[in-house]
C-alpha cells in the first residue's frame, strides 16, 4: 500500500510522535537489559552489552533520564486521548471477548481502547516510581542526601516499579504483534480504513475523514 495515497490509508501518528515513541522504546530496551543485569545474578552477563558492570552502573541512570524526558512529551500529547470513559469500563468487563478476538460484541472504541488506556497510566505511574526511587538510589550523585531507611525503601520501589513496567511493555509489544497493522501505525504512521473500522470504530467515525486527525 502506498502511504501517500490518502484514499486508501488513514493517518494515525505524525512523524514527531513516531520518533518520540521509538526514542522511548529504545531507551526502555536498554534500561530493561541493564537494569535486569544488576537485578539478578543470572543476568549479570547482560552488563557485557554495555561495556561491563561499571559502565552498566554508569549508563543506566542517564538512560533512565532519557526515557523519562522523552516520555514526558509523549504523555503530554496523548494524555487527553487516554482518559477513561464509561464505555471503557464495559470494554474491560468483556475482557474475555477481547482476548478471543470477538470485537463485534464489544462497545465501539475511540482512538484508544480501555486496555491501551490502562497501559498508558500503568506506564505513567511506574515511570514516576522509577524516577523518584532512581534518584534516591543514584549513589554517585544523590544517594548521600537521603537517610538509609529511605534508600532501602527506594531500592524496593525501583525493583517493583521496574517489574510492573517490564510486564506492561511485554503486554504492549505482544498486543502489537497480535493485532496486525498496529506496528505499521507506529512505524509508517498510517492504518488501513478497515483497521480503523474494526479496532477503533468510534475514532474512525469521529475523525475518519481524509487525514484521520493524526496525533
Amino acid at each position, binding site marked *: 500500500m502506498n502511504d501517500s495515497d490518502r484514499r486508501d490509508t488513514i493517518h494515525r501518528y505524525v512523524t514527531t510522535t513516531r520518533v518520540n515513541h521509538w526514542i522511548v522504546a529504545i531507551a526502555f530496551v536498554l534500561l530493561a537489559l541493564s537494569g535486569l543485569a*544488576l*537485578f*539478578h*545474578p*543470572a*543476568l*549479570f552477563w547482560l*552488563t557485557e552489552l554495555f561495556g*561491563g*558492570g*561499571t559502565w*552498566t*552502573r*554508569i549508563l543506566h541512570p542517564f538512560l533512565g533520564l532519557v526515557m523519562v524526558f522523552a516520555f514526558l512529551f509523549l504523555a503530554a500529547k496523548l494524555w487527553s486521548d487516554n482518559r477513561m470513559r464509561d464505555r471503557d469500563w464495559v470494554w474491560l468487563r468483556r475482557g474475555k471477548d477481547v*482476548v*478471543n*478476538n470477538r*470485537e463485534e460484541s464489544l462497545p465501539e472504541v475511540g482512538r484508544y481502547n480501555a486496555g491501551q488506556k490502562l497501559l498508558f497510566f500503568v506506564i505513567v505511574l511506574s515511570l514516576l516510581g522509577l524516577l523518584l526511587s532512581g534518584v534516591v*538510589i543514584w*549513589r*554517585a550523585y544523590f*544517594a548521600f542526601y537521603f537517610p*538509609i*531507611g529511605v*534508600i*532501602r*525503601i527506594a*531500592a*524496593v520501589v525501583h*525493583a*517493583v516499579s521496574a*517489574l510492573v513496567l*517490564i*510486564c506492561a511493555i*511485554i*503486554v504492549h*509489544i*505482544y498486543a502489537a*504483534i*497480535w*493485532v*496486525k*497493522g498496529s506496528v505499521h501505525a507506529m512505524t509508517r504512521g498510517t492504518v*488501513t*480504513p*478497515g*483497521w*480503523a*473500522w*474494526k*479496532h477503533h470504530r468510534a475514532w*474512525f*467515525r469521529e475523525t*475518519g*475523514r481524509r487525514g484521520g486527525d493524526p496525533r
Partner: protein
Amino acid sequence: MALQSLDIVRRSATTTPPPGARDAATAEVAKLIDVSKCIGCKACQVACMEWNDLRDEIGTNVGVYDNPADLSENSWTLMRYTEYENPKGDLEWLIRKDGCMHCADPGCLKACPSPGAIVQYANGIVDFHEESCIGCGYCITGCPFNIPRLSRKDKKVYKCTLCSDRVAVGLEPACVKACPTGAIVFGSKEDMKEHAAERIEDLKSRGFDKAGLYDPAGVGGTHVMYVLHHADQPSLYAGLPDQPKISAMVGLWKGVSKPISLAVIALTALAGFFHYIVVGRNEVSESDEQAARRELEKRDE
C-alpha cells in the same frame, strides 16, 4: 584479597555453591575489642593506614576527639568518643573503635550485584574485591552498621579487610599488633569468647554488672566483637546498633523478589506466546475493509 579461592565460603551475586573441597579445617577467627581497656590513643588507626598504605585527607577539628570525623575510603577504622553521664551523675568516656564487624550474615554481600566483588572466607572475614566492584553502592544500602564508603575519586567501595592479607599468612591484624593496652586481641572466635568471658567477669566484679559481649545474633554473630561495660545499651557507644540485622527491605529486595520477578516476567511473555498459538492473530479481513470503504463513500456523498 590475599586468601585464596579455596577458602571462599560465600560470594556475592552467585547462585551456585562455592568451592567445597576444603572442609571447615580453618577455625573461625575473631577480633575482640575490649572497650573498657581502650585509652583512645588511635594507634590502631595509624597502624591501619600504615599497613594498608592509606592516607586520608587532613581534615579540620570539628570539636570532638574523633579524627577523622568519619570513616572514609582511606580510614577503615576510627575511634569514636562518647561522653556519657551515668545514672550516678558520673562522666564516663566511652571510646569505641568503629569499623567493619565482619558479620556471619553480611548485608553488604547480600546486596552486592557484582559476582565476586564481595566474598566471605571460611575464617569469617568479609572482604571486598575492588577489581570486581562496579560502584553501585548497594553494599552501603545493605550494611546494618553503616561501614562501606564509596570513594569520590574512583567510585569503588572500601572498608576494613580484617587484614585478610596478614591473617592469611598467620599474622594478626595491624590494629591488634599496634594496640598498647591489649584492648584489641585476635584469635579463634572460640578463644576470643573465652577471653571475653574472663574480662566480663572482671568488669562485673568492679561494679559494671551489665558488662557483656557484643556478638549480635541478628547478623549471625560477628567476627569483630566488643566487650562493653554497658552491654544492655550498645547504642551508648556512638550509636552501635542495639539489635542489628539485615533490613527487611533489603531482605525483600535481594531475597524472594529476585526469583519471583523473573518468573513473572517469563510467565507474561509465555502467556503472550501461547495466546498467539491458541487464539491467534487479530487480522483485518477483506470484509472489514469493504465495510470501511462503504462508510467512507457514504460520507463523501
